[in-house]
């Protein structure tokens, strides 16, 4: 049977995997028509605001809302007594004792900005005035703001945790003390990894609406994890999951800050209920964004290594102190990630490190892109360069001697399958001209340095399962819906997942429309974090597409009296697998399914849970991810020794991504991560004094802008991960993990100055040069 008419879908997007197809939302973005929760305008919508503590640590003695309630235009006010006072957190499954935050605090406030009430009013002015009229009596308590002070006996107790330590994570393998004695060279280092802030361009914003006759909530939220938000809302509001609907629209960036329910999400819902079902919109100001959302954990990272003079790493010990701020959030998993990434990168049998997540009366630390890996990346990779220097070995040769390999199991039982680390290092080395430059450019005050890293593709560290689901619904006219729970925050997951689903179904990408992140309609997905979406949600989309394909082929096979095993759909055609002979077009096959004779709806289903094992947090063992990604990054810098200014001339990032589903998107992610890495290295430093953020605006907290970005070279290494969809692993975070170390290592190569505390500033360079003279 020949193709009867040319389908409008036969175009250049047939076989889309591996092609740089344009973003699904591209047109909406460039015309300004794509709608974010920030843009939501509804009639009768109220403006909500949070009442925040002006004190870093205080007991709430009394709270009187009567004057605020009397203000005309105020429609609802909530305090703790209007709630069930149920605590929520992000690491409930493994660390139930770290569930420590209430959406509206009842007895105590623990940081400047802590929420103790919320109002909804007809406009912003009235809401602000209402906040001013709420009368709170505080008993101010002494606060503690430095981690080394907070753990001392006698320090003010922020929660019930002894010595303000929310969590101790001991990771022990082998006998490092004995091996350390056998070492030819021992070195100990201490690094300071500062506090950065996700700072997405769209601030946190949500609209809550209560449907009074069904007692159902709808929350539109700028969220990376709508299902996580739903879970927490259901818990704190004591509702069933199917009475809480969280809808994610376009999200203007997340970077880890939008991974959980925040008090504002809770407040918007409850305020709407109190206001008789009127929708309530709460949008954070940029100052609130910097001070009351989630920030990176500042960490003191101590590491000690023993090596043989031939470069073999024998033993590693150390300690990590993390400034957690007032509540736990994702702290435990961030700390774990900060300590255990090293096992993916280096072959180690003897290791002892203790990690402490410490409460302080500073704003809350949570997940931020890199998840502890940025801090550990800076510390470990800087330290490794110092170690190589001690034994007179080239930093790349030293690393090559100790890195992990494909198809191995690490000492903590991580199963590494494809591992392109060696290839990444060699490709980066060749691309940058390492051998011609390293140690040879001091007269130009130029230097070159390397940092390597590995990344997980998802992590079974906060819930019992981390499965993703997908539904591929094929309409009668051949257009296709992909329903996925995955949350596109700009990284292009809607596009990549649509490409995967289209490829699996055997059709052009042009057929697919993607509906994502609506907890009522799309299947469950844990969200956009740990670089998991391409791998995990991608596999679900793959399975969903394949399932839909099989449903179609079943009808075709039956109608033509052939075995289904003989058939496949590829590039818009139903073909015989054996010889690629065309049986009919996809459109014709669909006609058959929706025909009078068969009338079969095509609804493909996919569910994927990666083959991982939960981490045993007493031993540190567990295969936390179904697949691991790797990279090597090299930075070339030039230092002006008069002004102390370090210019990064060029960055090379060789990245093992399994397979690039959309090469342009992958390059975009690499470039964005590198920019954030540059930010962390030089500018991003959220500073506090007595719990107050000193630079809570874009004037004081510098993020990278268009001027001064280095030349960026993203080198894609495709190791074809069997377990991944079409070989893909994914990436989203890794490129910023080793940047700071690569730059610090390059600075040392250039001028012999070693910076151990980020950010690298002209002041520090000048000071170090003066001290050396």
């Amino acid at each position, binding site marked *: 049977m020949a193709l009867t008419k040319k389908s409008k879908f036969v175009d250049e997007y047939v076989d889309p995997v591996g092609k740089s197809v344009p973003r699904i939302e591209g047109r909406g973005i460039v015309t300004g028509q794509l709608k974010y929760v920030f843009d939501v305008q509804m009639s009768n919508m109220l403006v909500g605001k949070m009442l925040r503590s002006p004190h870093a640590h205080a007991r709430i003695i009394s709270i009187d809302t009567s004057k605020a309630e009397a203000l005309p235009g105020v429609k609802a006010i909530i305090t703790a007594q209007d709630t069930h006072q149920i605590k929520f957190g992000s690491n409930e499954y493994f660390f139930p004792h770290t569930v420590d935050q209430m959406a509206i605090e009842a007895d105590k406030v623990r940081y400047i900005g802590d929420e103790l009430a919320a109002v909804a009013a007809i*406009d*912003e*002015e009235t809401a*602000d005035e209402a906040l*001013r009229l709420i009368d709170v009596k505080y008993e101010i308590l002494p606060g503690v703001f430095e981690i080394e002070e907070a753990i001392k006996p006698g320090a003010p107790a922020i929660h019930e945790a002894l010595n303000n330590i929310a969590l101790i994570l001991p990771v022990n393998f082998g006998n490092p003390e004995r091996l350390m004695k056998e070492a030819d060279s021992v070195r100990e280092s201490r690094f300071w990894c500062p506090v950065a802030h996700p700072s997405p361009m769209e601030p946190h914003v949500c609209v809550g609406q209560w449907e009074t006759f069904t007692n159902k909530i709808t929350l539109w939220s700028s969220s990376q994890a709508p299902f996580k938000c739903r879970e927490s809302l259901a818990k704190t509001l004591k509702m069933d999951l199917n009475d809480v609907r969280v809808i994610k629209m376009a999200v203007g960036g997340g970077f880890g800050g939008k991974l959980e329910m925040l008090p504002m999400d809770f407040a918007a819902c409850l305020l709407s209920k109190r206001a008789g079902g009127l929708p309530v919109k709460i949008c954070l*100001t940029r100052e609130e964004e910097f001070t009351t959302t989630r920030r990176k954990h500042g960490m003191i990272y101590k590491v000690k290594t023993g090596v043989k003079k031939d470069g073999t790493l024998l033993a590693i010990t150390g300690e990590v102190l993390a400034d957690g701020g007032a509540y736990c959030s994702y702290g435990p998993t961030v700390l774990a990630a900060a300590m255990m990434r090293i096992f993916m990168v280096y072959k180690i049998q003897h290791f002892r490190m203790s990690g402490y997540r410490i409460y302080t009366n500073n704003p809350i630390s949570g997940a931020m892109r890199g998840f502890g890996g940025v801090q550990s990346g800076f510390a470990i990779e800087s330290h490794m360069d110092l170690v190589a220097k001690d034994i007179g070995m080239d930093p790349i040769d030293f690393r090559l001697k100790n890195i992990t390999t494909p198809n191995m199991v690490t000492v903590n039982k991580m199963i590494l399958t494809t591992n392109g680390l060696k290839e990444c290092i060699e490709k980066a080395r060749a691309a940058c001209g390492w051998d011609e430059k390293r140690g040879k450019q001091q007269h130009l005050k130029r230097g070159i340095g390397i940092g390597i890293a590995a990344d997980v593709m998802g992590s079974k560290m906060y819930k019992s399962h981390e499965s993703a689901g997908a539904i591929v619904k094929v309409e009668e006219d051949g257009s296709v819906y992909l329903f996925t729970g995955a949350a596109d925050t700009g990284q292009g997951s809607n596009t990549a997942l649509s490409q995967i689903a289209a490829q699996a179904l055997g059709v052009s990408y042009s057929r697919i429309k993607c509906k994502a992140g609506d907890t009522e309609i799309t299947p469950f997905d844990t969200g956009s974090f740990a670089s998991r979406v391409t791998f995990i949600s991608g596999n679900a989309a793959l399975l969903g597409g394949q399932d839909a394909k099989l449903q179609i082929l079943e009808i075709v096979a039956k109608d033509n009296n052939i075995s289904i095993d003989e058939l496949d759909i590829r590039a818009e055609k139903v073909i015989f697998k054996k010889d690629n002979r065309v049986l009919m077009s996809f459109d014709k096959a669909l006609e058959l399914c929706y025909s009078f004779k068969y009338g079969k709806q095509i609804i493909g289903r996919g569910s994927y849970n990666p083959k991982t094992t939960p981490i045993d947090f007493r031993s540190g063992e567990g295969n936390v991810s179904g697949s691991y990604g790797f990279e090597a990054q090299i930075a070339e810098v030039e230092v002006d020794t*008069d*002004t*102390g*200014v370090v210019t990064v001339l060029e960055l090379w990032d060789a990245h093992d991504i399994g397979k690039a589903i959309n090469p342009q998107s992958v390059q975009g992610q690499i470039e964005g991560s590198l920019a954030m890495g540059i930010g962390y290295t*030089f*500018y991003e*430093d959220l*500073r506090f004094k007595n719990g107050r953020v*000193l*630079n809570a605006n874009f*004037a*004081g907290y*510098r993020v990278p*802008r268009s001027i001064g970005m280095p030349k960026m070279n993203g080198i894609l290494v495709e190791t074809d991960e069997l377990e991944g969809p079409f070989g893909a692993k994914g990436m989203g975070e890794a490129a910023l993990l080793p940047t700071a170390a690569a730059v610090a290592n390059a600075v040392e190569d250039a001028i012999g100055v070693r910076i151990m505390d980020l*950010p690298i*500033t*002209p*002041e520090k360079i*000048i*000071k170090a040069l003066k001290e050396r003279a």
Partner: protein
Amino acid sequence: MLLNPLTLHLPKTSLEAARLYKELEDSKVLAGGTFLLNSMKLLKVKGTKTARNILSLAKVDELKGVSLQGDTLTIRAMTRINDLLETQLPDGHLKVLHTVCTNISTNPIRNMATFGGNLTCRYTWTEMGAVMIALEAKMHFLGADGKEEIIGAEDFFKNAARSEKLFTHVTIKTRMAACAAYRRVKKTVHVDVPLLAICMKTEIKGKQWYNTRVGINNGVAFAQRDLALEEFLNKSSSSPDLGKEALEHLTTAIYDTRSSDYKKHMFRVSLKSAIEEISLSS
């Protein structure tokens, strides 16, 4: 609403504007708006009252534009920073006007902010003051009675940048034998204002510097001259290591009070570099 209720006044001529400047109570001048509107928003959030009357100069065409006639450069108050940047200037010392414009904030701000606003905003860290002092600019003000008052830039800043009359334009004499250099330490990591800015202008005959002007902005006080350094440079400019030697003749109070070690270091690096640039160009 992000701003308190206000009444906008839109005069069409500079005389009308000067009169309103005198007569309006509880008023502020709106030039580019990059300082004023930001601060009005911030004050409202804090619950603080802001000016009721806003005197906008947007429609006063007489206050716009840059012109060069003979040896006098005139820059009018409402000239936008980017307009000044795009104005052709003769080679020589006037080019520092372009350099200082490039450093100011970001592009859209440069499109909106005005030359006059930068000079009269009373923020000590604005750099235009140092440049005006070095170029010996005369600042022209218009009274409600139509009478013009002329104040040297140096005196204007000595009076903490205050005036009772409306600023209309500066005049700068271009000098054939003059060279100038401008240095600014880049925006620091933490705060988006310049750490320091210096502008140095001199006239050179042979190897001799004379009529040297050094305008310093240290961010703490309003822009000022360093008379000690000027005197040294005028006397000793034939010295081969001029830049290095000059550093011993700085007025300590300008550079060292409330300055971190890094800032002191950068003052010295910048001054040495500026002196060397001028020496080389002559």
